């Protein structure tokens, strides 16, 4: 089964977006539960939420795996961009935004791994990071010209 580079790039990118989505959701749930525990107002959601430690771990794993997949996908995408756009490959809006997204998640991941920040701050960053992903996916093409016009 011959998988071409484009297919692999797409698959990895989508997979990484899925992972970032999980990081986003777990980040939000973490903040909700943390707030309830801190303010001692255990609302209706309290019973159903998984433990803080689990949400934290899920957030960590999904960021790490997502970042890994995203990085590989980006490398492939860069190769493809250079192949099809030649010297102007960085002028493509989506490529550019993806680079920015990569840097953002690189920062997020390194913060997470060094564990000098825990919990809340990382949760907030996960949410911001995913917002950037959404922007990359949907907003990019309205602002910058891009070859990824099918998205």
């Amino acid at each position, binding site marked *: 089964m011959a998988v071409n580079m484009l297919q692999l790039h797409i698959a990895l990118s989508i997979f990484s977006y899925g992972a970032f989505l999980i990081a986003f959701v777990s980040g939000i749930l973490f903040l909700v539960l943390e707030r309830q525990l801190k303010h001692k107002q255990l609302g209706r959601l309290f019973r159903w939420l998984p*433990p803080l430690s689990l949400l934290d771990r899920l957030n960590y794993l999904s960021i790490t795996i997502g970042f890994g997949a995203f990085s590989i996908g980006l490398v492939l995408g860069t190769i493809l961009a250079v192949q099809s756009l030649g010297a102007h490959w960085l002028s493509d809006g989506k490529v550019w935004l993806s680079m920015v997204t990569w840097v953002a998640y690189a920062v997020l991941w390194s913060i997470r791994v060094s564990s*000098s920040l825990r*919990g809340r701050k990382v949760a907030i960053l996960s949410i911001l990071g995913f917002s950037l992903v959404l922007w990359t996916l949907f907003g990019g093409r309205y602002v910058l010209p891009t070859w990824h016009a099918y998205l």
Partner: protein
Amino acid sequence: MQILVVGVNHQTAPVEVRERLALAKSRLGEALHAARSHGHLAECVMLSTCNRVELYGVVPEADGQVERLKDFFQRYSQLELPLLDQVLYSFQQPNSIRHLFRVASGLDSMVIGESEVLGQVKEAYEIARGQGTTGKVFNVLFQKALNAAKEVRTQTGINRGATSVGSVAVRLAQKIFGPLQRHTILIIGAGAMGELTLRHLVKCGAESILVSNRSYDRAVALAEQWGGQAMTFEQLEQGLAQADIVISSTGAPHAVLSASQVQAAMRARRKRPLFIIDIAVPRDVESSAGSLDNVYLYNIDDLQGIVEGHRAQREEAAAASQAIIDRKVRLFMEWLATNGTPLAAGHARQPAGSRPD
């Protein structure tokens, strides 16, 4: 035909009286037979728990029955009749049926919605059936009681929500840390409630325990008791850096842990979450420590508040349960009307459409 119940519970009789009436499982058999012959009962089940001692009976008619059963209680407990008159209650149907359904559902228990009583009712019934003191009526009634209890439990929130400070503390710890196995507990001081909380945590899987006390000897003694490690009071900050869950219940008239000490500990533990249960009055931990990142500080009022909230929820659920119980009682009474009388029991086959529920 009547279904009767005669008995005492934690609301009508103090424990000194209840323990005279209580029956060990080994004696239940002989008691059932004695009750049946003495009380002229067609069927008989006895329920003896720490909350209640009750006798359920099927009689041809209610006249004089309660007196005979009171007499039966008097004989084996040797309590005086005037006292028994004060503490014994009795119900005839449909209230006797309602009472059984309520008891099985945990609505008559000291802790509303507790689930132990369901197993106790089941066991009491099975012992009686094994002794041959149940018949057509009770074989159905007790089954219906267990079903009613299950429905109440699943449809209302009656058994949800921890109802003691210790169990609330455990739930919170589990919500923060997940399974407690790999987490360390530090217990400061030797207050009774602190030890109770520790016991709850250990029961739910906590294994690693550090004990700190003003008196090192006391710490060593407690550490031995719990299979933990003793620490001197000076090593408190070190313990704080190691432990994930802290139980503090010293008798000190002032705080033994300042916010800055907690902050230092958080730095040392790289901000891993810290759950502090401060059940001392006056409080042991400076309250501003609670606003630090990843520190969860609960004092006795906080925990009590949660317990109260759960209790209120259970009482609401109890009110909702009434509707379910009423419906079940009505259904059973309908079944009884067509099947329960001696006349109907003589028929070889039940008429179609007369099955209960």
